[in-house]
């Protein structure tokens, strides 16, 4: 179908000033641009330029600081570990909820949303009391010699708590859309359970799992409220990057604070871009639910 298209006479693109068909373009655009500029673009520009305010070197120096490096490594490392654990647990919960439907699955389904419902500070103090050496879980673990609260392990567990629903809520709808016949067809073709999981289920769920992982990771890197209580906040041990930003601010070290902030902003933007790209491969109907999840 490749034939040359002769240019018809008088053909030209009309200027942008052509009135839109659906009324309200000027108003909705104006308001949107004002809203986005005032609340997002302006503040983020301030963040993006501040670290360089006193030169590139100062910025590098602020980041090169051992304490800052450790805090960043701790935040990213714990988020990575937590997101991985979330992905495993989330897949398990989603599969059980959708395919097994055990008695009481509705309760199980409701439980998954608890972390969405708990404000971060509430989650923080609750998890701390739970995992403290005197807590319900912390005490038995303490007797086994495992310390959770005030260690990176505690941070990771808190991040698993806040990240878990993201994975379940991303994977579950995709699994629901995935016809059971697909698995059954593989079974009739003689595939073993392991093969079905590896060759049929996981490839189909991979974009959803990756999206869920990305969401949990992004949330984990920046998480503050649910972590600071359980972290103990010892510098170089259990001090997360967001907390260090707060500390630098209290020291009036704006360049230091914004240098760390900028790194976190870039990480968030990268995660968002990756998630956006992945989301295109998910069913469109998912958008509504994810809107809630995020």
């Amino acid at each position, binding site marked *: 179908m490749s034939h040359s*298209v002769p240019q018809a006479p*008088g053909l030209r693109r*009309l200027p942008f000033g052509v009135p*839109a068909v659906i009324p309200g373009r000027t108003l909705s655009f104006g308001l949107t641009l004002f809203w986005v500029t005032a609340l997002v673009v302006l503040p983020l520009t301030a963040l993006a330029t501040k670290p360089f305010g006193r030169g590139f070197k100062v910025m590098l120096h602020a980041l090169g600081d051992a304490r800052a490096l450790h805090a960043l490594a701790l935040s990213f490392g714990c988020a990575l570990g937590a997101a991985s654990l979330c992905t495993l647990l989330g897949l398990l919960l989603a599969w059980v909820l959708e395919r097994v439907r055990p008695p009481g699955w509705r309760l199980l389904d409701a439980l998954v949303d608890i972390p969405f419902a708990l404000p971060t500070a509430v989650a923080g103090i609750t998890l701390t009391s739970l995992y403290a050496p005197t807590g319900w879980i912390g005490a038995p673990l303490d007797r086994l010699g495992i310390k959770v609260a005030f260690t990176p392990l505690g941070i990771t567990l808190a991040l698993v708590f806040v990240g878990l629903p993201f994975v379940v809520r991303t994977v579950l709808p995709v699994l629901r859309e995935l016809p059971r016949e697909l698995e059954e067809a593989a079974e009739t073709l003689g595939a073993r359970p392991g093969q079905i999981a590896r060759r049929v289920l996981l490839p189909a769920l991979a974009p959803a799992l990756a999206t869920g992982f990305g969401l949990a990771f992004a949330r984990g890197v920046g998480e503050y409220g649910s972590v600071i209580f359980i972290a103990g906040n010892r510098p170089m041990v259990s001090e997360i990057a967001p907390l260090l930003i707060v500390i630098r601010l209290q020291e009036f070290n704006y360049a230091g604070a914004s240098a760390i902030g900028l790194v976190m902003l870039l990480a968030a933007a990268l995660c968002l871009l990756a998630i956006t790209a992945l989301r295109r491969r998910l069913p469109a109907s998912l958008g509504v639910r994810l809107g809630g999840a995020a």
Partner: protein
Amino acid sequence: MGVDLRNISCLFGRTPAVRDISLRVSNGEFLALVGPSGAGKTTLLRIIAGLEPNYTGQLSIGARDVTRVPARERNIGFVFQNYALFRHMTVAENVAFGLRVRPRKRRPARAAIAARVSELLELVQVGPLAQRYPTQLSGGQRQRVALARALATEPELLLLDEPFGALDPLVRKEIRTWLRRLHERLGLTSILVTHDQSEALEVADRIAVLRDGSLEQVDTPDALEDRPSSLFVHQFLGETVGFDASAGTDGAILSLNGPWNGTPARFPEPATAPGPGPGRRHLSLRPWEIGLEPTDAQGAARVTGMGRAGPFLRYAVRAPDGSHAVEVLRPSSLPPLPEDGGCALDLRLARVFAQPGADDTGA
């Protein structure tokens, strides 16, 4: 209200969707825009409606130049492809919408609106469904409600975008004839977009055939069938059988080319040929327009198969060298032809076109 399009063009990005179309629709006429998908027919309809503001050229409805008039002020009734009924409103509310949103000065009284709505619902024969929601209606009923909604503001021009596309074949036929009657009764000017040529042939006074954004031919259904301006039009409007042929200096067809070369055949009068002079031609016919005459002559075509097709017998007719076959329909009232017998072709009803791609046609 007549519609006058002058040099209408429209670009989508850098691809022209509609190319320099000039077309006049007279008052009370029912025009169908047909063409394969991507031909620009829906774009043209949306341009007339004002839903596609990015166009050049001039557009008048009646005596009024509406080129730069926004859609909401053109007073056009538009029936969308999937009806676009408001799902949260009842049937009655849907129909009343156009009247309710008028500025207070021009808005009819509440009672007047209600009266008009029930009148319209009666007109489209869905009166008892007034309090239903669109999701509770069948496809045909939705179609009727969409039409009633479009007619509520008393437009003089009605535009319909693939109005039968989503209906099942039985309902489709019924709604089609009903729509035609309604058009006549209300004295509307209507423009309909469809990709189904049989629909257009049945409903429309005139048909505009579009191809790649350009207007190929505008004419009555009979004229399009008898005198298609191009092979494309003839092929688009129905099943065709084609033969390559050569013409002599006076324009008369002398012989068939290719595998059919030498087959005894009768050809149309020279007057039907596209321009005088020798050259290559293409003959195009409907399968039932080809006559078959038994013959023992050298190089005759062969009947190689036969089957019933409604009131016709379907013959597979093969070229002498066996390389090429065409299907011919022949009334079953005629005496059947012997299988594997020779036959001559009667192609006098053929439309003659300059051969596509031939040097001397100038096309």
